[in-house]
């Protein structure tokens, strides 16, 4: 009721429902949700209940938080958005990987860039071994091959300590 009375005040505010893979439903204004290209296309096709099978409730809650904040973006609150972004990317690698997968699936370009930049910053000084662990990549080089690849840019492996931690 509350939402319908507010929409009558401000004219027509179209509402959409997003449904997470856990079955939870979130009702949001269309103007917020269309930051997401995937949903925008579904809205254009006339959908108002949008099932998101690849996004669980926890991730979707975070993403809605992001979209709501960024829908408020104006010239004057740049600093506030910046701080929000800074807080938003705190969290474990696993959380960020969940988010980045969802952002990629939903085509939210701003969020994609934010997360990729943040992950890049965090792995920038990591050792090769730590990066393999973080991304769960198994080393498919033979020791000889790896040695060869290393020798091609030896200088990049020298100088300074690399961070072995996984967080």
């Amino acid at each position, binding site marked *: 009721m509350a939402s319908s009375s507010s929409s009558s005040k401000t004219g027509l505010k179209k509402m959409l429902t997003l449904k997470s893979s856990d079955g939870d439903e979130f009702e949001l204004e269309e103007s917020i949700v269309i930051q997401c290209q995937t949903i925008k296309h579904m809205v254009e096709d006339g959908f108002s209940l949008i099932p998101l099978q690849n996004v669980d409730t926890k991730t979707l809650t975070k993403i809605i938080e992001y979209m709501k904040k960024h829908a408020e973006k104006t010239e004057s609150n740049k600093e506030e958005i910046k701080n929000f972004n800074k807080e938003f990317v705190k969290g474990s690698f696993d959380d960020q990987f969940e988010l980045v*997968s969802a952002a990629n699936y939903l085509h939210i370009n701003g969020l994609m860039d934010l997360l990729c930049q943040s992950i890049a910053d965090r*792995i920038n000084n990591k050792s090769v071994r730590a990066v393999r662990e973080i991304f769960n990549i198994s*080393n498919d080089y033979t020791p000889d091959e790896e040695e060869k*690849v290393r020798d*091609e840019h030896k200088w990049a492996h020298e100088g300074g300590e690399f961070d072995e931690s996984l967080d």
Partner: protein
Amino acid sequence: MPPKRKENSKKTKSRVPDPNSYLYFPREIISNILSHLPVKTLLLFRCVCKQWRNLISKPNFIAIHFRHSSSSILIETRHHESSDHVLSLYNQHESSVVDELDNPFPCFFPRMYIVPPCNGIVCLFQAPWGDMITLWNSATRVPYWLALITDEFGMRPVFVYFDVGRKVFEKLPMLPTGERRKQHQHRVTLEDCLAKDKNGELVLFDRVTSSVKAKLSIDNAEKGYYVIFDYSESLVMIDGTLPVKKQDAQDKLARKNLTRRSWSQAVETTSGRNASYSSVDNITGDIKFVSQSILKAKQIAGS
């Protein structure tokens, strides 16, 4: 015995893929993340796995990476008596430290000039008629190679740059030759300019606010000449650093194949000595040949 077995089982366990693994991370996400990293880190991460190594060498990845690359300032200084020159890089965002670059010309060249960078590649040449023309990527530390081009006007030195998107060499407009540049010359970048204060120190100015943004300390710059450029690092010619066996480039058959290509340019691999010619077309396939000239140039530089 038991401890050993334990160790083994631990090892295999960590290799078994975890069901929640990110191996299924779409390639585009990995590509997007990696494109925000500096060149040095990417060269290191080539060792992570084969997929990453391949990705980091892909032309479209190199192009995306270059767009994300942050801008720094490349400074060429020269001592006025010795003509000894130094190339340094100053990254405004990281610190006020000026990094001296490994100069691709280790020996003395009295009249070496620099052409503004393009796609991360710097062109160094010796005036007036480029008896040494060098394309150099300071970020990947790709050593230099020398080029003379043969076209409808015969053999002549032309400045070329590598177009990342189209993967071809493009000619740069010619600089006026034979004209000596004045000492104390400075060039102005988009926002900043470089000047000397009364103590002879180089300072970086913000032209809009007229404030000193940074003092740059470069040893040999007290007297003499300096030029600055905007510079963004790139991975261009990353494959050019692959080691190539010497005999490969001397292989006549390989050379014949190269000269058969349609749009041909001759590349002189050395400055006259050991000159060997071959043609290079739309680069990608032939980048290994280029690296042969790198090896030769290295030998000369080392000798």
